[in-house]
């Protein structure tokens, strides 16, 4: 707030929010695209993360190494680089024509899968060993134990950090604007250049992201409470 006052004193900038009004439907469509990308990418990330976590914990060394390689690589490379690489690199190297939307979803999902793998692994390892042993003495196979005893509990433990990752996803998805997917951020960029009112456009975009993430986070904590198991 104080910096805004300072700006007004130093450079008498007059906010003109009304230039945004004609673009409100475009912003709304952009927000919808942001949610679409985020939800699909989060699902991709959850599936990949679960598979990678199981591979990481498997008895087979090859699978472990593959999982560790995947997790290290995509946590170590900047998301922006991954996105650009998926969009341009994959089509150059393999001749596959990705739409910007699918390249964005793939890059986000694969990167988030690397983080989610560690979340799932922590959840699985948090289950007391006695659960596994009791299930073993009842004659369940390792896979049945994972499916019916360990994962249902581990997923509930992982629910809060998964929710967090979705909140981050909503914001990180803004990077796909550089692939020219018209998400909320991209609409902000277009409006900024159309109106020469970048400050208003980006401030508005920031406020919308803020409310979207806060509302989603509150909703998710309700879900968490619904699924929590007491021990």
């Amino acid at each position: 707030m104080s910096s805004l006052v300072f700006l007004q004193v130093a450079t008498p900038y007059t906010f003109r929010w009304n230039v945004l009004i004609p673009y409100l439907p475009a912003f709304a469509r952009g927000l919808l695209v942001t949610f679409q990308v985020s939800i699909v990418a989060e699902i991709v990330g959850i599936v990949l993360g679960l598979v990678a976590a199981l591979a990481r914990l498997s008895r087979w060394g090859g699978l472990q190494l593959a999982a560790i390689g995947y997790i290290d690589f995509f946590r170590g490379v900047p998301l922006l680089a991954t996105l650009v690489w998926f969009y341009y690199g994959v089509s150059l190297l393999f001749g596959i024509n990705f739409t910007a939307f699918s390249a964005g979803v793939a890059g986000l999902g694969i990167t988030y899968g690397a983080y989610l793998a560690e979340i799932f692994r922590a959840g699985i390892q948090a289950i007391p060993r006695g659960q596994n042993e009791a299930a073993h003495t009842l004659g369940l196979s390792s896979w049945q134990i994972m499916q019916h005893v360990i994962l249902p509990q581990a997923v509930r433990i992982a629910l809060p950090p998964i929710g967090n990752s979705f909140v981050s996803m909503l914001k990180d998805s803004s990077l796909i604007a550089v692939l020219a997917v018209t998400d909320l951020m991209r609409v902000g960029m277009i409006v900024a250049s159309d109106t020469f009112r970048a400050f208003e456009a980006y401030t508005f975009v920031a406020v919308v992201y803020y409310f979207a993430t806060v509302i989603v986070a509150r909703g998710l904590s309700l879900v968490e409470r619904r699924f929590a198991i007491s021990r």
Partner: protein
Amino acid sequence: MPEADAPRDLMIRVVDLEKHFGDVQVLRGVSFDVARGEVLVVIGPSGSGKTTLLRCLARLEEPNGGEIWVDGSRFTGRTPRHTVGMVFQQFNLFPHLSVLDNIILAPRLVRKLSRANAVAEARDLLRRVNLLEKAEAYPVQLSGGQQQRVAIARSLAMQPKVMLFDEVTSALDRELVMEVLQVMKKLAEDGMTMVVVTHELWFARNVADRLFLIDHGVVIEEGPPDRIFSAPREERTRRFLGELL
């Protein structure tokens, strides 16, 4: 050891069982037989190898040497594990499942029972442990004694030939111990073969057919409870019982 050697009423034969964890030798050649329907109580100071012995019998630990035979066949990695049921100190009920679902999970997955049949069996078992009214409850809503009785019912649902009990009352408040011991007593009277690690002398005196004292990975004294309580042969037995009484 040829199968024909085993007497007909033999349920468990353990021969020269050895187990070490790294350099620590926990079981140093333990051998014993348990007859069908017999209740063997294992006592001994902590760290003596009692729990490891049970865990080997349940195949939760792979022995480093020796053989385990159950009901006339060698108990190996390929034997269905639920031949031997086990109840744990910490109950280990599945917290995300109701009491009924805890009990029917393995019968449905392993014995391939239909849900209706598994539920019918589970209700019979719950009646046996006096917890039928808790079928829909979750483990967290039960007392420790009730949880342990559910754990016993859950094990029985797999129709094991042998039941192992590893200090199943040690985590319970005093006033809840008896309800679990009574269920175990009834089970013994119904003819279940049981190996019980416990510090409960009431159970050892009144239910055990035979008593085992283990120390440092070897059986140091064995015999009927009356004899061991009244006239222990070994100094170590006398000292250990003295500490418990």
